[in-house]
């Protein structure tokens, strides 16, 4: 899409009109949650948050894949980085994610670990070919957006006969987590702004239960201010009528059935499994693991890695924040013991983390 066209979705005058309409029509309070880190950042970066009518409460959900990476998963990849046989390949987001004792990949690198930031999982193929005597381990963190590309990388590796690539698979799936969230009575929500990128892969169907089972609204939404405002305005409208719907406002990218080809590749290589989410705990069926037919690529098998739940970090309110029960600045560690310079949890370090967004963008 051209940038000129995108500009139209940022039109200040149209945004103003929608904001006025929302102000007029909002009766009481609307609590909405976005479940995509890109939305978190978009809402802050555009200044939208400072312009929303007072009755609208914006909550950031478990939508940043880095933030929901469980402590034991972080410790697992940090341990593996110390292995002399291993070259860790990772997306840049994970470099500063803190594990036990606040160690991270950056510090591991300074201690001699070989860590390579890649822009695409396909870069790992070249890395593996260039280092035939070593094992290249890619840290597979991400949602349905990322998983198909990693699956495609593994397929290509098999075709090219690359035998020194492994994937440390910590992928998670979004709809299962939303189901678990909504089942939690403590969470008070009127609706979701659904993730644009994830939905481009999975489509709209997997979210239908939000209205059907829980009587809440949810709209698949793009990342420009007008996209977001339009979805919020729609949710106000439905609520005023006492209705709940799941709809797609991001039709320029997201089709009803998503990207079936990508889903097919993803499920050819991965299968659903139970997964531990940071702050949320164990959610049955919410993860992806490598199928037995592809276990030659499985770093967990290769190194005997088992992910186990442990006690949460003392004081860290990540769980309540990811569930929208608390705002980041209500965490006692926020801005004090936990800052981007010295993060306690990944929410403070990921570019798309809600704590980092609060710290970086919130004015008062």
């Amino acid at each position, binding site marked *: 899409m051209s940038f000129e066209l995108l500009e139209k979705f940022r039109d200040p005058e149209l945004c103003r009109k929608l904001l006025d309409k929302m102000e007029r029509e909002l009766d009481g309070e609307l609590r909405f949650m976005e479940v995509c880190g890109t939305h978190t950042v978009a809402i802050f970066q555009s200044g939208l948050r*400072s312009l929303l009518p007072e009755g609208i409460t914006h909550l950031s959900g478990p939508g940043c894949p880095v933030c929901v990476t469980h402590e034991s998963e972080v410790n697992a990849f940090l341990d593996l980085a110390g292995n002399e046989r291993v070259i860790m390949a990772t997306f840049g987001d994970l470099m*500063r994610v803190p594990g036990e004792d606040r160690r991270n990949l950056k510090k591991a690198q300074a201690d001699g670990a070989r860590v390579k930031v890649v822009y695409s999982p396909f870069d790992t193929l070249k890395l593996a070919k260039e280092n035939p005597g070593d094992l290249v381990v890619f840290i597979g963190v991400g949602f349905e957006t990322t998983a198909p590309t990693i699956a495609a990388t593994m397929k290509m590796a098999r075709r090219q006969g690359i035998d020194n690539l492994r994937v440390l698979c910590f992928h998670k799936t979004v709809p299962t987590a939303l189901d678990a969230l909504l089942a939690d009575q403590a969470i008070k929500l009127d609706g979701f702004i659904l993730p644009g990128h994830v939905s481009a892969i999975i489509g709209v169907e997997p979210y239908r239960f939000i209205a059907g089972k829980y009587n809440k609204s949810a709209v698949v939404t793009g990342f420009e201010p007008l996209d977001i405002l339009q979805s919020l305005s729609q949710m106000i409208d439905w609520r005023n009528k006492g209705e709940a719907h799941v709809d797609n406002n991001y039709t320029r990218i997201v089709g009803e059935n998503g990207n079936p080809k990508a889903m097919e590749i993803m499920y050819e290589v991965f299968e659903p499994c139970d997964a531990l989410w940071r702050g949320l705990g164990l959610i049955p069926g919410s993860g992806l693991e490598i199928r037995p037919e592809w276990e030659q690529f499985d770093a967990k098998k290769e190194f005997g890695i088992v992910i186990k739940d442990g006690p949460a970090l003392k004081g860290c309110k990540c769980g309540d924040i990811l569930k929208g029960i608390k705002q980041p600045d209500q965490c006692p560690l926020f801005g004090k013991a936990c800052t981007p310079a010295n993060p306690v949890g990944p929410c403070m370090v990921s570019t798309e983390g809600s704590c980092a967004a609060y710290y970086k963008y919130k004015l008062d």
Partner: protein
Amino acid sequence: MSEKVLLDYGSGGRASQRLISKLFLGNLGNDELNRLNDAAELSVSGRVAMSTDSFTVDPIFFPGGNIGSLAVHGTVNDVAMMGAVPRYMTCGYIIEEGLPMADLEIIVKSMAEAVEHAGVQIVSGDTKVVPKGAVDKIFINTTGIGDIIVDPAPSGDAARPGDAVLISGTIGDHGLTILGTREGLDFEADVKSDSAALNHLLVRLVRELPEVHVLRDPTRGGLATTLNEITTSSNVCCELNETSLPIRPEVQGGCSILGLDPLYLANEGKFICILPEAQAEKALEIMRSDPLGGDACRIGTMTDANPGKVVLVTQLGGKRLLGMLEGEQLPRIC
């Protein structure tokens, strides 16, 4: 096989001598440097500005320049930001053995062109060659000195509420070029470094408008970081208008793809000018009359609202904090 720089060239022996006389004096030579004394003999008086910088850029060649031209521009600009006329420079090379001699020649020739254009002389130099792996290809340190021609000199702590905040042109070009070239990314459009010596434009500006409060080049950390440094030192708030920020569409596009913010990307041929409101128009006129300031524009105002902070007034009219980054920008997952 093409000629390479060997450890011998940094030994101080005949090989070094040949490199110095042929390559360095041949290109950068002047009366003072040619004397090859242990130190340069200079005549300076009054208030001088002095600055040093080490250049370790990877890749060493990039669209719009190379480490050589950058090493001259960077130091010349730093000296000029003090309201000074840059005059002399020193230059130290640390070269990894095995660097192709042809590469070194290109770098030295670029430096020669850059010093010529900036009107400065390199009066002292040093070359070390270190074993493979001890440095990455070539590192260059330059130090510059110049005569300060205004009193008081512009300073980061001199911004005052009510001052206008100007930028001399588009932002993010250099940083995106370096990141893009380093990662071998092909951008659809032509993105190149803005590396340039700004001293002639700056000298004109401070001669005509000696009341300029702050001049700064937003290099590492970009515009956002530099403005944060200024608001902290001056204890004022900078209100920045997002709609006024000059960013090339191709830079904006490249940044969106990589998940980078152009406000935090380095610039090597731009400066921030902060001065009393009444002089803003005149300053813009002077800047725009020079090709290096052709896209100059007003981007904000200093206020006393949130001392020490930079506030971005977004396109939509919302306000948000524009803070400092913790470290380098890292590309994102999705």
